[in-house]
């Protein structure tokens, strides 16, 4: 004897199907909104800035005349600063994550440290700028230089790198660790030969995210004292510099029409650099990831 009449099943099934479709539709709508906004932004930028992008724009320095203004110093500045930030945050972040996950995994210290690091990721970026100004510029006498800027951004993104690297390290199956310990490996050998290589793609993803964030940061570098008008290449780690977002911000605040166009062109350049970096990193990650999968 059926407790629920057949027709009741039928009705429920119809409702479930309808619900499924509605949810599908909602997801699609969200994607459409996100992509739509992006498309509008890109089209607007292209219309405004595409004409401004040419060789002399890419290879000229800042100028008071809109038609002579170029973005060379900002491109170089951004690349150098982000390189420093990437290398420093990768090194410190991986070492910290390995310590917290492999050496001190169950200690109370590690637990407290991890909570605090997660919280640091939410500190407003300008705070890091002020910190960088004090520590790197003043205390370590680095001046308002490429190095100081890179270190400041490294501090800013370090929590992201540590959290991502920690997750990647935890995702390495314990059976691989046991297998290598059982062959007489020391802790260092297990980390170096097993844990790090397997966690590397995940760590790389974290560093990419972090560096992508760093390249768009303006506030902390302004607070630290980066320049806004740089008519020279930053040719040493200690030379002064500007970066793309600062240059763009500076141009948008000028009244002349020509600078608005330069700003749009600058944003396109920034996006292209971001895209190249992300694509490169994804390729690198896939290269390491797919190698041994059965």
């Amino acid at each position: 004897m059926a407790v629920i009449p057949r027709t009741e099943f039928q009705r429920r099934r119809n409702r479930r199907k309808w619900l499924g479709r509605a949810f599908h539709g909602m997801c699609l709508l969200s994607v459409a909104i996100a992509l739509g906004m992006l498309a509008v932004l890109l089209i607007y930028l292209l219309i405004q800035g595409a004409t401004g992008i040419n060789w002399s724009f890419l290879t000229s320095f800042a100028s008071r005349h809109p038609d002579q203004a170029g973005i060379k110093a900002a491109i170089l500045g951004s690349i150098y600063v982000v390189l420093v930030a990437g290398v420093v945050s990768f090194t410190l972040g991986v070492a910290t994550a390995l310590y917290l996950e492999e050496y001190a995994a169950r200690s109370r210290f590690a637990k407290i440290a991890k909570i605090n690091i997660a919280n640091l990721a939410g500190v407003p970026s300008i705070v890091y700028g002020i910190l960088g100004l004090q520590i790197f510029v003043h205390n370590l006498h680095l001046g308002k230089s490429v190095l100081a800027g890179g270190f400041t951004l490294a501090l800013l993104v370090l929590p992201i790198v540590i959290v991502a690297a920690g997750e990647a390290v935890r995702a390495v199956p314990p059976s691989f660790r046991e297998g290598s310990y059982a062959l007489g490996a020391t802790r260092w050998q297990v980390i170096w030969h097993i844990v790090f290589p397997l966690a590397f793609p995940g760590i790389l993803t974290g560093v990419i995210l972090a560096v992508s964030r760093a390249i768009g940061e303006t506030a902390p570098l302004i607070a630290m004292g980066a320049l806004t008008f740089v008519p020279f290449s930053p040719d040493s780690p200690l030379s002064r510099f500007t970066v793309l977002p600062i240059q763009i911000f500076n141009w948008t605040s000028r009244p002349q029409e020509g600078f608005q166009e330069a700003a749009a062109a600058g944003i396109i350049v920034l996006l292209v650099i971001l895209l190249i970096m992300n694509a490169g990193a994804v390729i690198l990650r896939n290269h390491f990831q797919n190698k041994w999968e059965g």
Partner: protein
Amino acid sequence: MLDQDFILQTRGLSVYYDSKIAVTDVNLNVARNRITSIIGPSGCGKSTLLRCFNRMNDLIPSARVEGQVLFDGLDLYGPDVDPTEIRYEIGMVFQRPNPFPKSIYDNVAFGPRINGFKGDMDEVVERSLVRAALWDEVKDRLKASALSLSGGQQQRLCIARALAVEPRVILMDEPCSALDPFATLAIEELMRELSEDYSIIIVTHNMQQAARVSHYTAFLMLEETRVGFLVEFGESRKIFTNPEDERTEAYITGRFG
């Protein structure tokens, strides 16, 4: 038998996880170049006991070992003993095959490499794979990923990996539980051959397997009041045909556990 005939001996060995006891006062003599099996119901402490022999319990922060484990007379838990040096003398094969996500070759070469081996690696890899009865199947694809092998092949690769560091003892924790009967027989055959040169301890849930391959059998048990104690230990032939303890008989005839 004389003491020299035993490669491993436990004296009053107990293991605790925090304050919970898992192995209670076990005295066991493991014969050289023989296969010793450890049987018993789930949770009675077989794996815990096995992991005492290569100090893998050191990796579990809550685990604490009391008593002695003598390896050729040397106390494994003595103050000057470095567990990493024990572990390549006493190899281990795990329940689930766990080859590293590297090439077949690099899996076998891993142990020799980390232990600073400088000689002819190709030769070591070939010899280990031959001993593990895997060479013919993989000799043309040594650079292929170890994860592309079948489960049974992976387990033999893990055995080859353990053999490559020339251990004297091989510990196996239910090495066939993830394998089909055919692969199981292949591993059992392999164990028989290996026992000419190695001392083997195997944990198994499979009575027939213990009876088929092992020379000696230890039966561990747990009761409400006691866990992980040794009920009976002796020649497998005797344990499986004419056990002294009625609990052993109940267990091997399947009336319990």
